[in-house]
């Protein structure tokens, strides 16, 4: 009898201890969650702050932009006079409609062809054995590390010889082969069991069908990630479009940013307005597709 009582006493004590631990744990959790939130908010502010200045300035008239920069006051961050002048000018005087269209067109075409060409190459690397495979793959990786500025002038000469200067071809084609995309796809393909492909082949599918109808649909996350990466790369591209195009009809966004700095004046408000729009587009694309983006990269490092 006494043993039972002892046991139940012990049991009660344990229960009390556990619930106390749980309570402190919970308190600890709340505390750590709280500090996490503080940390997150702090980081978010650091990230957003510079953009805030750009956004605010884009709604100011040109003469006001630097007036309230110092001394600090509420006026530094909130415009005293809100005007859409900058945004309107962008489209009426500077032809930004055309520029946006150009940049969009170039980016999307690069994505479409880029995905095709690079995933095809990745397919070859991942699922076949052939002579020179390792060498070629290394070559691909190496070229991915070549800085554009290093090859700018020779590249210009080649594109000139091909007659592609000041054309969409010149803007798009040199940027199509992309080592990073090949790498991403290859990692993903490696994870897909060969048996799946063999089954398709036995059923009489050609290699193309196997690639296009079986393998690629399984890779939607990678396609999303790769597409986003390529799109943003082309959207933000600056140096190459600068030297490869000259006429207004082919001008892309980042090059047009330079238009605001003329020899004698800088149109800050319009520059900020253009920047805001230039940031908005990739952000609007990337945010909703975030989850797929992360998924697409998952597995590209952890396995092999």
């Amino acid at each position, binding site marked *: 009898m006494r043993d039972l009582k002892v046991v139940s006493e012990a049991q009660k004590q344990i229960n009390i201890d556990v619930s106390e631990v749980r309570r402190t744990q919970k308190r600890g959790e709340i505390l750590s969650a709280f500090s996490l939130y503080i940390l997150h908010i702090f980081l978010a502010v650091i990230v957003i702050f510079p953009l805030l200045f750009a956004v605010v300035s884009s709604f100011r008239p*040109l*003469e*006001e*932009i*630097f*007036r309230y920069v*110092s*001394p600090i006051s509420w006026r530094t961050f909130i415009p005293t006079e809100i005007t859409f002048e900058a945004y309107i000018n962008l489209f009426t005087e500077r032809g930004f409609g055309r520029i946006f269209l150009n940049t969009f067109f170039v980016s999307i075409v690069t994505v479409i062809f880029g995905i095709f060409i690079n995933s095809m190459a990745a397919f070859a690397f991942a699922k076949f054995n052939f*002579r*020179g495979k390792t*060498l070629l793959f290394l070559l691909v990786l190496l070229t991915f590390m070549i800085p554009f500025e290093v090859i*700018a*002038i020779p590249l*210009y*000469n080649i594109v*000139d010889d091909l007659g592609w*200067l000041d054309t969409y071809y010149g803007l798009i084609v040199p940027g199509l082969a992309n080592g990073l995309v090949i790498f991403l796809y290859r990692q993903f393909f490696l994870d897909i069991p060969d048996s799946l492909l063999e089954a398709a082949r036995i059923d009489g599918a050609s290699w193309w069908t196997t690639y296009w109808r079986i393998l690629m649909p399984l890779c939607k996350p990678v396609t999303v990630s790769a597409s986003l990466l390529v799109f943003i790369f082309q959207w933000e591209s600056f140096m190459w479009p*600068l*030297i490869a195009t*000259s*006429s*207004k009809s082919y001008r892309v966004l980042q*090059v047009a940013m*330079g*238009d*605001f*700095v*003329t*020899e*004698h*004046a*800088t149109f*800050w408000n319009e520059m900020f307005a253009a920047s805001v729009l230039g940031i908005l587009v990739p952000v609007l694309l990337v945010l909703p597709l975030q989850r797929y983006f992360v998924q697409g990269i998952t597995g590209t490092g952890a396995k092999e």
Partner: protein
Amino acid sequence: MLALLLFILVGFLIVGCSSNKEVDNTSSEGNDTTSENSNSSESTDPGTVELIWISQQNDERTQPVIDAFEEANPNIKIKKETYPFRQLFETIEVKLGSKTPDVDIIDVDVPLVANYAVKGYLEPLDNYLDPDIKSKWIDSAVEAGSFQGQLVAPPINTSSQVLYYNKTIFEEKGIAPPPNDIEQRWTWDQVVETAQKLTSDNNGDGQTDVFGFSFEQISRPYQILPLPQGLGADQFDEKGIVTDGYTNSALSVEAGQFYYDLYNTWNVSPKIPVEQAKEYFTTGKIAMFIGGTWNVGDFAEADLDYGFAPHPYFEGGEVVTPTGSWHLGVSKNSTKKEAAAKFVEFFTAGDGAKIWFESANNLPAHVDILNSIEEDPKFAEFPANINVLAAYEAANTAVPRPMTPGYLEWESLVNKAYEDIKNGSDPKDALDTAIQQIDRQLKKYESVVK
């Protein structure tokens, strides 16, 4: 292994073939004499010739000139490719450096004339233009547009600088501003003294709110050259490739010291990047501002109550004002040189020059137009009378930038030196470091300067 060897071989073969292209270019150079006939190498399209012009001039302003030219020359069309100012130079390097025939006419920033000539970008125009044409422009512009005796780039404009001031700030402090009178031109001492009185921290927060003085093109040689030049310091030897003993001479260092003092000793100038200088003046943060005559339009828009006076000078020294602007050149690799020369003549000396002046209002290098400014009632009132002051300076006190094939190198490194001085580096050290790099880079021009 075989694949690798084959690959490398192919690589070098391709590269080898392209080097033949370079040889071809040099052999064709010999044939390119002045006996070129307008019929021989024009475009394949019978009748119309299209000229490609690489420029940074504003499209709206050049359009009237282009229209007038095309009307007078119905079989020549001008296709203008416009670039932002900052990128124009790199673009010219890439395109003309690759010797493409796709460029006919380029804007030439006047100090680069020697550099472009030496790199073989510009076609000498003496054989295409009327020999009397040089008398149509002011001497400094002709000199600056020629290389080794040949005219390679006629001028479309020149430029001048004045001392602007913010009337409101002067009135608030009860100080008399500099007068717009050549006879009463202020010395730098007067400018500094006034600037010190006007520099203030109005709300006691430790940050200066009004600065007494600033240049428009901070640290840029175009703007600051009057400092050493006013003290009598040359920047180069006669050949234009040695700077040691010139750009860092005692007088040049003295000029550098003055610049240093503006920012670090007297603290009358704001250490801002060059792109923000004008905005600081228009928003009332700067009291006195040396800037180009082209600013009057923007100042009016900003609702600024301002006045202007002649460019200051060092007491006992020469009066020196910045000058020089854009010229036009014909590309050596163009296949339509005769037509291109026609356009250049029209723009710089013919009817185009007057149209350009009316359209863009930039200070002309054309002697007749310049002279007409003083008489023209259009320019009698403020602020248009700034052109009268500018015309005077351009004709009397303007000193062009140094003539050297290595201008870009020199300018870039002197700009860096002056930026360093502005940020607190010792002027002598900064200039000594600069000349070492400059002279090293300029060695390669030794063979071409006689």
